[in-house]
C-alpha cells in the first residue's frame, strides 16, 4: 500500500486512523500529566516557591524601599563625594518623620546599620529629633546631632538602600562590599564567609572521602556474603540510619567529652585525657558515622548486581586477584560510588546540628551561619544570600560532576 493511501485509512466508524491515534496519544499524555501533577505542585509549593521568595529577599531592600523615596529623589543629582545639600537633609527628615509615625524607622535604621555600623543609634536619635521639628534648617540640626551625618559614605549607603534592589547581601556573602570606588574586599578581620565556604566544602569532602574508604570494603563484604549473613551485618550498618540524627549526635557528645567513657579509658590506659569534644575531629567523626550508610548503600546495591562470574572470568582469563578486582569489579562499582559520594557530599554541605553540638567554633558550617542570621540577627537577606550562594556552588559542582562522571552513569541500585 502506498503512503498516500495509508494517510486515508479509516477506522470502522469512518474517522481517519491518524486522528484516532492522536486522540489515544492525547489521552495517554493527559493521564501521565495527571499522575505527575500532585507531586509537581507539591514541589512547586513547598520547595521552589520558598526558594524563589528567599532569593528575592536576598536582593531586595525590603526594609527601606518605598520608605526613603523623598531622600532618593533629593539625592538623584548628588555627586556622591561631598556633603548633600539642605534639600537632601530635609527629604530624609521628612521620610523619617513618616517612618517614625508608622513605627518603621527601626527597620530602616537596622538596614542602614548593616552597611554603616553605628547608624542605628544615629537614626533613632535623629528620628526622635525631627519628629519634634516643624521647619529647618535640617542640615545644621543633623550635623550638630552627630558628626556622622557629614560622612558621604553614610549618604551613599542611604542612597543605595533607597532603591528596590541591592547587591549588598550577595557581595557580603562572598566577603565583598561596595566601596567608594567600586567593589572591594572587606577588611580581613571582617572576612568570614569565604573561609566558612572553604571549610564547609573541605569538611564535606573529607567526610565523603572517609565514608568511601570505610564503606567500600564493608559494602564489598556485604555484597559477597551469603544473604542470611549479609542481612545480619546489614542491620549493623543500618542501625545508625534508623536512629535520629539528634540522638546519634548526642551520643557522640557523651562519648567524646572530657569526662566521657573514651577519655576515662584513655586516662586508665595512658594516664591522660584528650580534647575531643568541640573539635574538628569530633565533627568529622560524628558526620562520617552518620553519613556512612548513605555512601555505603548505593555502592552495596550496585555491587549486588555485579555477578560473581565476572571476577571469575577475569581470573580465568589470566588476571590475578588484584587485577581482576581493579580492572573488572571496581569499574562496575563506579556508578554506585558516584551516587553514594554525591549523596553524602551534598547532604554534608548542609550539616547544622552536628557541627553545632560536637564541633568547635572553627567547625561551624554555612548552615550554622544561615541559622544565625535567620534566627538571631533577623537578617533574612543575608541568610538567603548565604544559602543561595551555597546552592549555586553546589549546582556548579553538580554540573562539573555531570561533565566528568555523567549523571546518567549514576546508579542507586
Amino acid at each position, binding site marked *: 500500500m502506498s503512503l498516500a493511501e495509508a494517510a486515508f485509512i479509516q477506522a470502522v466508524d469512518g474517522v481517519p486512523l491518524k486522528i484516532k491515534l492522536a486522540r489515544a496519544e492525547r489521552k495517554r499524555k493527559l493521564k501521565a500529566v495527571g499522575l505527575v501533577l500532585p507531586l509537581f505542585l507539591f514541589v512547586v509549593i513547598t520547595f521552589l516557591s520558598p526558594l524563589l521568595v528567599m532569593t528575592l529577599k536576598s536582593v531586595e531592600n525590603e526594609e527601606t524601599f518605598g520608605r526613603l523615596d523623598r531622600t532618593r529623589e533629593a539625592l538623584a543629582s548628588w555627586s556622591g563625594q561631598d556633603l548633600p545639600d539642605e534639600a537632601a537633609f530635609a527629604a530624609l527628615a521628612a521620610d523619617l518623620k513618616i517612618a517614625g509615625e508608622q*513605627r*518603621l*524607622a*527601626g*527597620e530602616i*535604621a*537596622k538596614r542602614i*546599620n*548593616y552597611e554603616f*555600623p*553605628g*547608624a*542605628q*543609634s544615629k537614626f*533613632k536619635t535623629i528620628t526622635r529629633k525631627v519628629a519634634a521639628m516643624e521647619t529647618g534648617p535640617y542640615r545644621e540640626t543633623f550635623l550638630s546631632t552627630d558628626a556622622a551625618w557629614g560622612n558621604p559614605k553614610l549618604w551613599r549607603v542611604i542612597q543605595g538602600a533607597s532603591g528596590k534592589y541591592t547587591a549588598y547581601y550577595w557581595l557580603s556573602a562572598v566577603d565583598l562590599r561596595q566601596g567608594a570606588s567600586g567593589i572591594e574586599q572587606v577588611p*580581613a*578581620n*571582617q*572576612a*568570614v564567609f569565604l*573561609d*566558612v565556604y572553604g*571549610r564547609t566544602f573541605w569538611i564535606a569532602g573529607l567526610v565523603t572521602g572517609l565514608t568511601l574508604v570505610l564503606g567500600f570494603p564493608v559494602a564489598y563484604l556485604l555484597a559477597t556474603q551469603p544473604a542470611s549473613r549479609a542481612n545480619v551485618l546489614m542491620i549493623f550498618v543500618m542501625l545508625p540510619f534508623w536512629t535520629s540524627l*539528634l540522638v546519634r*549526635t*548526642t551520643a557522640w*557528645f557523651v562519648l567524646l*567529652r*572530657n*569526662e566521657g567513657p573514651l577519655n576515662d579509658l584513655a586516662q586508665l590506659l595512658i594516664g591522660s585525657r584528650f580534647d575531643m*569534644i*568541640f573539635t574538628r575531629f569530633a565533627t568529622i567523626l560524628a558526620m562520617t558515622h552518620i553519613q556512612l550508610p548513605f555512601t555505603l548503600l548505593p555502592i552495596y546495591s550496585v555491587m549486588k548486581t555485579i555477578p560473581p562470574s565476572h571476577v571469575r572470568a577475569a581470573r580465568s582469563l589470566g588476571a590475578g586477584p588484584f587485577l581482576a578486582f581493579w580492572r573488572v569489579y571496581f569499574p562496575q562499582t563506579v556508578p554506585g560510588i558516584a551516587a553514594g559520594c554525591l549523596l553524602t557530599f551534598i547532604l554534608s554541605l548542609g550539616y547544622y*546540628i552536628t557541627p*553545632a*553540638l560536637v564541633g*568547635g*567554633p*572553627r567547625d*561551624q558550617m554555612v548552615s550554622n*551561619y544561615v541559622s544565625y542570621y*535567620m*534566627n*538571631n*540577627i*533577623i*537578617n*533574612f537577606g543575608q*541568610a538567603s544570600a548565604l544559602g543561595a550562594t551555597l546552592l549555586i556552588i553546589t549546582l556548579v559542582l553538580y554540573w562539573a560532576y555531570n561533565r566528568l562522571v555523567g549523571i546518567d552513569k549514576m546508579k542507586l541500585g
Partner: protein
Amino acid sequence: MKSELLIKALVASAAAACVFGVHSAKAAEPLTIVSWGGAYSDSQRKAYYEPYMKQTGVKITEEEYDAELGKLKAMKEAGNVTWDVIDVDSAHALSGCDEGLFEKLDYSKIADTSKFLPGTALDCAVGTIAYSTIFAFNADVYKDNQPSVLEDLFDTKKYPGKRALLKKPFGNLEWALLADGVPAGDVYKLLATPEGVDRAFKKLDTIKSDIVWWEAGAQPPELLANGQVVMTSAFNGRIGNAIKEGKNFKIVWDRQEFDWDYWAIPADSKHVEGAYDFIKFASDPKNMSQQSKYIAYAPTRVEAIAMVDPKIAPTLPTYPENMKTAVTTDLQFWADNNEDLTKRFNAWLAQ
C-alpha cells in the same frame, strides 16, 4: 546542653499541638508563653504559670527558644503568630520594638510605670527580673587561693585550666577591656573605636586556647559539673540553682554585668488581652517576689524587692555587696555594633 533544649522544645511543641486540639473549644483562651527553658523556665512555671492557671483556668503552653526572634518575624510575615507572651533579653526588647515585632505596651493594663525600677518599663517590654552575667568556678578545684576578681578569669598562669565563655562578643569584649585595666566608664567609648576593639580581642587572645564556648544558659553549670572547665561565665541564677542542688561552685561578683529580662507581647498576637492579663499577674509584687525563691534573680518592682526572703537576698545580683563593681551593658552600643562585632568575633574564632 543544647540537645536537651531541642528535645524539650520538640516535646513541648508536640504537647502544644495536643493541648490546642483538646482545649480549643474552651472559653478561656489558652496562652503560649515563650521563654528560655531549663531552670529559668522552671522558676517561672512555679512562680507564675501554675498559680495563674489555677486562678484563671487559662491553659498555658510553654515553648522554649534561644532568642530566635527570626521565627517570630517569619510568623508575623506569614500572618500566623502563635506566641502570646515572650520573655526577652534587653537587647531584643529594644530591637524587637524598633522592628515592630512587639506590641507597644499600654501600662494602664499592667501597673503604673513609676512602680518599676528605672529602665525596666520600656515601650514594648516590661521588666520581670534583674540578672547578671558573672563568672563562677569549681571550688573543688580551687580549694584555697580562690579566684575573686575579674582579672583572675584572664589569668591562666595563676589559675590554669579551661574556662567557658558565651559564644558572642556581647559581654566578653567589655570584660576583656576591664580586665586589661580600662576604667568602667571608658569601656564603651573605647569599644566604639577600632583600636579599642583590637585591644579587647588582643586580651581575649591571651586565653583563647583555653576557652570552651557555650551558647545556651543551661550549659555553664554542666560544663563546670563534668569537669570540662574550671571556671565559666554564666547567668548568676543558673549557678545559684546548681549550688542549691549541692554543687560546690562559687560565684565571683566582681564586675558582674548587670542586665534585665522582660515580658513582651508579640505584635499580631491572637490573645493580646489574655497576654496583658498574664503580665499583670506576673508583675504583681507579691507574685513577683516568689520567683526569687526558685532562681536567684531579683524582681523589677520596688515593692517586690522588699518582699523577697532576706535569706535569699545575698544571692541576688541586686544585693548591695554584689553591686559594688557591677557594670551595666550599653544596649544602644550593641544595637549599633552587634552584627559587625559578631562578624569580627567569628572571624577571630576561625583564626
